[in-house]
């Protein structure tokens, strides 16, 4: 088995357990973690011993999303406007980012996200790209990308919860509790924190008893229905709009996350980013 530093991957009783393992950074996803996930998914997809994958986070949270430190994040984040890259290069990068979520969504094995604590940005994308999302009642779902002028690159959300809730999260910055996420159809189930592991294990065990071919075919037909409703073209459309958003010229006085980070440090920059926004419940 590959030697990973940012994730833990174990196989037990036909279940592949994947743990995002940067607990000191609340499992912020940097390029190294992303490439390890790429490698793991590729191995798991071909591994006949793995019938279902469970993805969870070590420590306090599932994942707070993209690592915003700017170090080792060229792949997970849209290119910095400072780099002034050719459009083609930025578009290719946007395609790669989106194809990654699409690939996980369409993986030929069932996937379960086991979510606790914060589940934001790319962490949210990962959790929702899984076939099933089970969360403990302390989970919080959100995506502050627009506050940094980054397009939330995950069209699937609108299909899961409808446009009004999508705008509440992405445009207004509302964070959804586990209960709200369950009621809106964003996730399958919210369970008490103490029961999360048992609930997910039980569900994974049930899936692992089914024939792997049947699982692959059933998943494909479910996703074909989503494809027929336009999810496929939406990924591509998202690439284009994401690129446009990156090429936008910032107006004078507009909050600039990169400048704030360089001046104040990462945590203070995140605080400065979120401070003007009222909390919405």
């Amino acid at each position, binding site marked *: 088995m590959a030697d990973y530093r940012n994730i833990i991957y174990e196989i037990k009783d036909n279940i592949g357990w994947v743990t995002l393992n940067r607990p000191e950074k609340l499992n912020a996803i940097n390029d190294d973690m992303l490439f390890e996930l790429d490698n793991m998914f590729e191995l798991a997809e071909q591994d006949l011993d793995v019938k279902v994958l469970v993805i969870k986070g070590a420590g306090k949270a599932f994942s707070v999303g993209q690592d915003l430190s700017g170090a080792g994040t060229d792949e997970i984040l849209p290119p910095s406007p400072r780099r002034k890259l050719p459009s083609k290069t930025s578009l290719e990068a946007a395609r790669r980012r989106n194809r990654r979520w699409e690939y996980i969504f369409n993986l030929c094995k069932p996937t379960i996200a086991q979510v606790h604590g914060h589940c934001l940005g790319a962490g949210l994308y990962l959790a929702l790209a899984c076939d099933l999302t089970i969360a403990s009642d302390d989970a919080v779902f959100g995506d502050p990308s*627009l*506050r940094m*002028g980054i*397009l939330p690159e995950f*069209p699937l959300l*609108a*299909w*899961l*919860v*409808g*446009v*009004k*809730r*999508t*705008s*509440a999260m*992405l*445009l*207004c*910055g*509302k964070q959804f509790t586990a209960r709200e996420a369950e*009621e*809106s*159809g964003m996730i399958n189930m919210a369970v008490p924190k103490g029961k999360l592991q048992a609930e997910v294990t039980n569900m994974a065990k049930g899936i692992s008893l089914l024939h792997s071919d049947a699982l692959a075919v059933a998943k494909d037909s479910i996703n074909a229905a989503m494809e027929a*409703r*336009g999810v496929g*073209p*939406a990924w591509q*459309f*998202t690439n284009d*709009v994401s690129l*446009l*958003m990156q090429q*936008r010229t*910032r*107006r004078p006085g*507009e909050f600039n996350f990169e400048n704030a980070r360089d001046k104040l440090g990462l945590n203070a920059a995140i605080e400065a980013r979120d401070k*003007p*926004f*009222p909390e*919405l419940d």
Partner: protein
Amino acid sequence: MPTGFGWTFKTQYQKSQWEDMEYRGREYGLLIYEKLEPHIVRITFNRPERRNALNDQLYNEFLAALHQANDDPQARVLIVRGSGPCFGSGHDLSSPPGEESPPIHPSLNPTLVDYYGIERRRCGKQEDILHYPKAIIAQVHGYCIGASEMIASMCDVIIATEEATFGVKGFSRMTLGVTNWPCFWPAESNKFWGGQLSSVIGGKQAVEAGFITKVVKAEELEAEALKWARAMAQLPAEVIAMYKEWLHGMMDIVGLGAAHRSHYADHLSLQYVRFRPDEVNLYKEKKDSGLKGFLKKREGSASTATKAKS
């Protein structure tokens, strides 16, 4: 907005109907236009004695107000609400035959193509609200029915009271389910609500179904709408506009554009309904017993049998 190249660039890629409605030199008679904060504009439908029913004057003033807020470089978020007992009771059915707001009067007898053009323009006004480049919040209390509900549903955010009532009363069986418009709704809910054509629903049901954003107590409504407006107003205007283009572009992939077209055609086909003697016909009833007579008769008809379950 000014581009620095000596020409004016509209954020819309195609001309919207509100751009044709001039606000300069206009005095609003049926609505109130207020600048609440540098980035927040509030538009109040102010025809409370008619429950903010939309006649041509009110609708045109609304479009002019949208135009005015668009041209205000500081404005980023609009709040739309109604004064008096409710948000709005839809088209003003007492409007004279020449007006566009209510259904086309049969005496006008236009050609099919003219009819389609009229319907397209009527419905297009609503569609242009959806594609408005700035964020809009509908602050809803009381009845939000028919065309008023259509306006609310075009807004990015709907904050409503628990007592708010959403639905389409229609005239006789000529109901078009705007609340049942599937493109706006997640898949699992449109099957449920779509089966309830012509029903009206309360604020709590509407939020459960994902049709509106949030439901609050009546006394909290104004403060809550302002809070949500302030949240969006923190974002640069361009970011809001591009986000909306992205979301609505995806809705077009799902088929929203086709749904709009089908809506024009449905309006049109309903103009050709042949009423059975036992059915309530707006124009016949209006002629025979006046608008109140029609409303009374409609109240007992099949289309309004389902009441709001708030």
